[in-house]
C-alpha cells in the first residue's frame, strides 16, 4: 500500500505558444456558439446557398439530367456573372445573420459580467483578446462565404474546362476579395457594437439598427440632394459596389469606387477605435 501526498505542483506540460494564445479565446467562444442547437441548425442551413450553387453548376453541365427535367443548357444560359452575383448575395445575407447572432455574445457578455479584467490579468493582451474574438467570426463566416463560393467557382472551372477560369478570373477574385472584405467589415463592426452596447439583446438591435438606419439615411440624403452622396454611409451599397467593381460590372451609383472603399475603411477604423476605447481592464468612474 502506498501513501500519496496530495500537494500542489506547477504545471509542467506543454504551453500554448505566446503568439497563439489568442486561439484559446477563439476555441472557447466557438464551443459556446455551437452549444446552442438552434444556432447549429441555422449554421447548417447557411451552407444551403453553396450547396444549391454546386447543384446548379453540376446541373448545367449534365445534359442527361437537364433533359430529364425538360431543360436545355441554352435555357440555363450558361452560368454567367449574374448567377455568381446572386449567389454572392445569397451567401452574404446569412453571413450577416450569423454575425448578428454570434457577435453580441463575444464581448458584451464579458463586459456585462466583468470578465475582461480576468482575461487581461492573464498573459494575454487586448490585441490577442480582440483577434481571438474576431477569429470566431472569421472561422464561422468563411465556410459559408468565400470558401463555398470558391468551391462553386472551382467546380465550374473544372467542368467548363479549357481556359474558362482565365476568362472569368474576376468571379473568383470577387468571391475571395468581396467576401473577405465583408467578413472583416461585419466582424469588426459587430464586435465593436458588442463592446459598446454591453448587453446582448441591445447589441443585436444596435447592429440591425445601424445597418438599416444608415441605409434609410443614405436614401433620404440621396433623395434630398438628388445625388448619390448619401451612399457614403450606406454600408450594404458600399460592399456590393466593391463586388460589382471586381466583377467588372457597372456600379449602383455614380460615386467612384474609391468612395465605397473609403466607407468600408472608415467603418473598420471607427470600429477599431471603439474597441480601443471600450476594452480596458479597468473602469474610470467620475
Amino acid at each position: 500500500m502506498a501513501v500519496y501526498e496530495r500537494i500542489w505542483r506547477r504545471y509542467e506540460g506543454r504551453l500554448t505558444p505566446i503568439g497563439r494564445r489568442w486561439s484559446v479565446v477563439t476555441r472557447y467562444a466557438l464551443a459556446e456558439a455551437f452549444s446552442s442547437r438552434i444556432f447549429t441548425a441555422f449554421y447548417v442551413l447557411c451552407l444551403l446557398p453553396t450547396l444549391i450553387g454546386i447543384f446548379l453548376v453540376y446541373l448545367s453541365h449534365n445534359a442527361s439530367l437537364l433533359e430529364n427535367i425538360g431543360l436545355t443548357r441554352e435555357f440555363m444560359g450558361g452560368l454567367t456573372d449574374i448567377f455568381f452575383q446572386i449567389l454572392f448575395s445569397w451567401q452574404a445575407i446569412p453571413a450577416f445573420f450569423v454575425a448578428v447572432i454570434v457577435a453580441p455574445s463575444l464581448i458584451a457578455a464579458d463586459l456585462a459580467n466583468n470578465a475582461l479584467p480576468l482575461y487581461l490579468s492573464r498573459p494575454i493582451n487586448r490585441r490577442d483578446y480582440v483577434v481571438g474574438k474576431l477569429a470566431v467570426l472569421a472561422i464561422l463566416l468563411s465556410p459559408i462565404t468565400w470558401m463555398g463560393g470558391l468551391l462553386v467557382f472551382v467546380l465550374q472551372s473544372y467542368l467548363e474546362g479549357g481556359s474558362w477560369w482565365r476568362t472569368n478570373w474576376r468571379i473568383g477574385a470577387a468571391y475571395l476579395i468581396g467576401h473577405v472584405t465583408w467578413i472583416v467589415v461585419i466582424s469588426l463592426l459587430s464586435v465593436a457594437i458588442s463592446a459598446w452596447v454591453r448587453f446582448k439583446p441591445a447589441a443585436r438591435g444596435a447592429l440591425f439598427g445601424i445597418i438599416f438606419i444608415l441605409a434609410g439615411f443614405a436614401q433620404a440624403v440621396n433623395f434630398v440632394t438628388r445625388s448619390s452622396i448619401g451612399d457614403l454611409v450606406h454600408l450594404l451599397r458600399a460592399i456590393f459596389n466593391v463586388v460589382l467593381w471586381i466583377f467588372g460590372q457597372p456600379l449602383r451609383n455614380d460615386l467612384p469606387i474609391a468612395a465605397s472603399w473609403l466607407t468600408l475603411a472608415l467603418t473598420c477604423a471607427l470600429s477599431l477605435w471603439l474597441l480601443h476605447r471600450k476594452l480596458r481592464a479597468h473602469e474610470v468612474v467620475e
Partner: protein
Amino acid sequence: MTGGPATGWPLWRRQIAVLARQEVGRSLLGRRVLPILLLALMPLGIALLRALFLPESQRAHPGHTTTEFAQIFHFFLLRFIAFFATALLFVKLFRGEMLERSLHFHLLAPVRREVLAVGKYVGGLISAALAMAATVALTWVLFYVPHGSLGFSYIASGRGLGELAAYVGITVLACAAYGALFLLAGLFVKNPMVPAMLFLGWELLTPFLPGYLKALSIVHYLGSLEPVPVSQGPFALLAQPVPGWLAVLALVAISLGLLALAAWRTRALEITYSVD
C-alpha cells in the same frame, strides 16, 4: 415613518411623477442620450445637406418642399428614427434594468406594480416625445430656411403652423404607440429586439397589404393623419384612408391597451437575474 399622502390617487400621482422624472433624467441627461442624439441628428443632417445642395432655381419656389418633407417624414423619420428611438428608450425601462440588475430597487418600494409601469411609461414617453418632436420641428423648419423670406413666411403662416402641429402631433402619437409596444416587448421577451425587428418588417410591408391587414399596423393610422399624402409606390395596395379622429382614437386605444397589458404583466414580474 410619517409624511406624504397615504394612499390612492394623490400618492399614485406623486409616485408616477417621481418615476417619470427619474426616467426623463436618465434618458435625456445621462449617457443614454447619446444614441438618441445620433438618431435625432440624422434628419437634421439631411435638412442641412438639402439646404446646401438645393439648386438656386428651386430656392424661390417652396411648394415642392412640402412634398419632400412629407416623404422624408413618412419614410425616414417615422419608420426609422422614431421607431428606433422609442425602441431604445422603452426597451430599457424594464428589460434594460433587468440586465443592469437594478430593477429590484423599484420592486422594493411601496409602489403598486401598475403604477410602476405607468410611471416608467410616462417618463419614457416624455423623453421620446421631447426628443422626437424637437427633431421633427427643427427638421421641418430647416427644410424651409433655404427659401429665405418665402420660407419664413410659410413657417409663420397658419397653414405652415398647422402642418408643423400635425407633424409634431403624429410624432407624439407614434412615440406613445411604439413606446407602449416596446415597453410590453421588454416585459414579455428576453430579447425584445427580435419582435421589434419583426414588427419593423411588418410596418415596412404595410403598403402592400390589404386593408384589413393594414389595420394591424401602427404606421397605417399615423399615415392617415399626415397633412400631405405620400405615395407608397406603384405596387402599394390602396385602401380607404382612416378618418383623422378615428386614427387618433385608434392610436390612443392601442397605446392604452398595450400599456394596460404591460401593467398587468408587471404584477407577475419576478426577479431572477441571470446571465444572458
